[in-house]
């Protein structure tokens, strides 16, 4: 008798407790309203434009496109670094938004999961876009994401400093070396890049690697080693600070604005800050090894996608909103407000005429290459290898060739 009295409640409560666990867990994940059919009043949007001008402009155009389709937009914002985590969490709890923004190198990764729907299913036209833009938005032959405006990086230079030193913006690597050396004096450096241990560092190295014929599939090549040697030489002869291995693109821009670097590699998103700083800057293409080489720029920017939420009616409306964001007029207007480049080639040409300062970017974007173009979802591994090699070469741990060889063979 006694032992039984003692056991039963324990067992019972244990069972009750275990039974409660899934209930509690299920409680966390609920909340998706699968109301197929009927009129759609509102759609949800998730993006990472959570600050200042970008937040305002994107918000205005989302609302505008919502109004054109008779829906209200319920927009959620997260910081850039936590977007993917948020998306994965929503994918597993089946609470993905109706419209989702993704950074273009992440698109293939997310499309691979099956969480996104092809935009062509909704009859969205993919004509007129720059090649790289479609490349970035395509997974297994289908377009899953389109970017209204895109960006890339170029050479920014301080006009006053170049004039004082009697140099013109460099076009080749040799010119870059001599110009940087001449511009280096009194604790100020000639040139600055972001070579930090993140994908940002990889992104800045790509134009040098690609323009010289290097390739992300195998970085242990002489072509890529030449590009890396250019960077190491610039650090070795003192034209570039050793601190570049720890600078973000924002840090590089700060150095440039503070007059501590006469030239830098950066993108058009820095233009508002540069204008505020009152610095007299010019923009040129990133130098290539010999004048006959073509500059290959990496494509940056965010694509808009329509996740598979299961609610067909909402997905249709969401696709219309994505289409509207990519409308030629809206592309041009947003490009001007955000200093980015329209993704449709013809619109970009018009933009170049209206904003001549950014013509350099227009030219580069037309032939820009998507980071995931070759490796797709395997890009993150290759990108890690690239910044690892850049870091060990710039810190003098290995020669450029050895650094690339070691990084390529690492798993």
């Amino acid at each position: 008798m006694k032992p039984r009295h003692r056991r039963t409640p324990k067992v019972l409560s244990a069972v009750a407790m275990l039974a409660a666990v899934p209930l509690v867990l299920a409680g966390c994940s609920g909340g998706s309203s699968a109301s197929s059919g009927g009129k759609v009043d509102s759609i949800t949007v998730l993006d990472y434009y959570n600050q200042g001008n970008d937040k305002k402009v994107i918000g205005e155009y989302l609302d505008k496109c919502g109004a054109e389709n008779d829906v209200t937009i319920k927009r959620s914002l997260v910081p850039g670094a936590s977007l993917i985590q948020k998306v994965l969490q929503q994918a597993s709890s089946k609470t993905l938004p109706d419209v989702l923004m993704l950074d273009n190198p992440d698109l293939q990764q997310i499309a691979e999961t099956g969480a996104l729907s092809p935009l062509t299913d909704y009859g969205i036209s993919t004509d007129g876009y720059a090649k790289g833009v479609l490349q970035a938005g395509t997974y297994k032959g289908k377009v899953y994401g389109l970017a209204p405006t895109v960006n890339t990086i170029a050479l920014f230079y301080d006009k006053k400093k170049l004039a004082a030193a009697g140099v013109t913006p460099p076009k080749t690597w040799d010119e870059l070396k001599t110009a940087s050396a001449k511009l280096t004096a009194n604790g100020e450096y000639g040139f600055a890049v972001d070579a930090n241990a993140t994908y940002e560092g990889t992104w800045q190295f790509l134009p040098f690697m690609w323009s010289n014929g290097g390739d992300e599939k195998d970085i242990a090549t002489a072509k890529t080693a030449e590009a890396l040697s250019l960077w190491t030489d610039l650090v070795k002869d003192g034209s570039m600070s050793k601190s570049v291995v720890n600078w973000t693109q924002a840090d590089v821009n700060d150095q440039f604005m503070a007059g501590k670097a006469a030239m830098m590699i950066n993108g058009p998103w820095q233009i508002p800050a540069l204008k505020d700083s009152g610095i007299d800057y010019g923009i040129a293409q990133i130098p290539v090894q010999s004048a006959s080489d073509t500059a290959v720029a990496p494509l940056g920017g965010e694509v808009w996608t329509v996740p598979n939420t299961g609610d067909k009616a909402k997905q249709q409306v969401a696709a219309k909103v994505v289409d509207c964001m990519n409308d030629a007029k809206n592309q041009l207007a947003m490009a001007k407000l955000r200093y980015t480049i329209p993704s449709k080639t013809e619109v970009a040409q018009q933009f170049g005429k209206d904003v001549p300062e950014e013509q350099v970017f227009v030219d580069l974007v037309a032939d820009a290459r998507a980071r995931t173009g070759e490796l797709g979802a395997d890009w993150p591994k290759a990108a890690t290898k690239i910044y690892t090699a850049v870091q060990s070469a710039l810190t003098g741990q290995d020669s450029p060739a050895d650094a690339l060889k070691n990084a390529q063979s690492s798993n």
Partner: protein
Amino acid sequence: MTSTATHVAPQRAAGDGSTTPAPRPARRGRGLRFERIAQLLFLLPAVVFLVLFFGYPVVKNIVMSFQAYTTSTFYTGEAPWVGLSNYVSVVSSQLFSTALLNTALFTIGSIVGQFVLGLLLALFFRRNFPLSGLLRSLLLLPWLLPLIVSSAVWKWMLDQDSGVVNQFLGIFGIGSVPWLTSPAVALITVIGVNIWIGIPFNTTILYGGLQDIPTELYEAAALDGATGWKAFWSITWPMLRPVVSVTLVLGVVYTIKVLDIILGLTNGGPANATQTIATQSYDLSFKQFDFGQGAALSNILIVISALFAIVYLRLNRKAIDD
């Protein structure tokens, strides 16, 4: 906990029975059962909490480490079983030995620095002097700042060319130190910043321990001629021992998993010089989206921390037995 509860229950039930001269078995049984249920109900919140917030993540992480857990898994729920292959690739990676060594150096360096400086400050603040209370509370400041803020400020101060630290050293003719940009120096710098962050914790706990040592002991010792160092070694240190072991073990467990400070200062660079098991695990899971390998690496880290916890429990038991 449960074992003590079972021992207590029958005794108390017997006590209740003694008040009634002729105990009836049925009633007694029911009373016993209600009491048991009540006891278990008191335990329930703690058990639910542990299962939900401790048991579930740990089990999930262990299961994950044996699966090919990728981004697709989040949408499809499919994670093929891959046995030990995640562990094999993580351990055979070139980075593993570097990360393991860095983790060891980072942990030992931080703990030694934090503890020694923390103890010295605690001893210093035991003397009462004007403004000692105010200074002691100011000492907590590094603890109150969000880690990402303090690491951003340190990164800025330690910049090789324009950082305030090098400019200050320049006054004394010391050339620019590559704090965060040289693979040979970066780990030492990161340890230094982590020591700065850890001092308040060590000082606070050790100061609390010092307050518990009766002053009469020192007075008596002083009469016998034991002051200064002698008093420290024969009174302070032995009396402080239990607090010291808590501080050290908690310190190790906190330090071994440090992530934000390293990410904020160097991102594991330059050239992997500050890559630890924790940063590497974060990198695998949240940058390369290989959640299986990330989980495998973090399990290795959990095992290492658990070893320290076991050592601590052993030492503690020995101290009680003695």
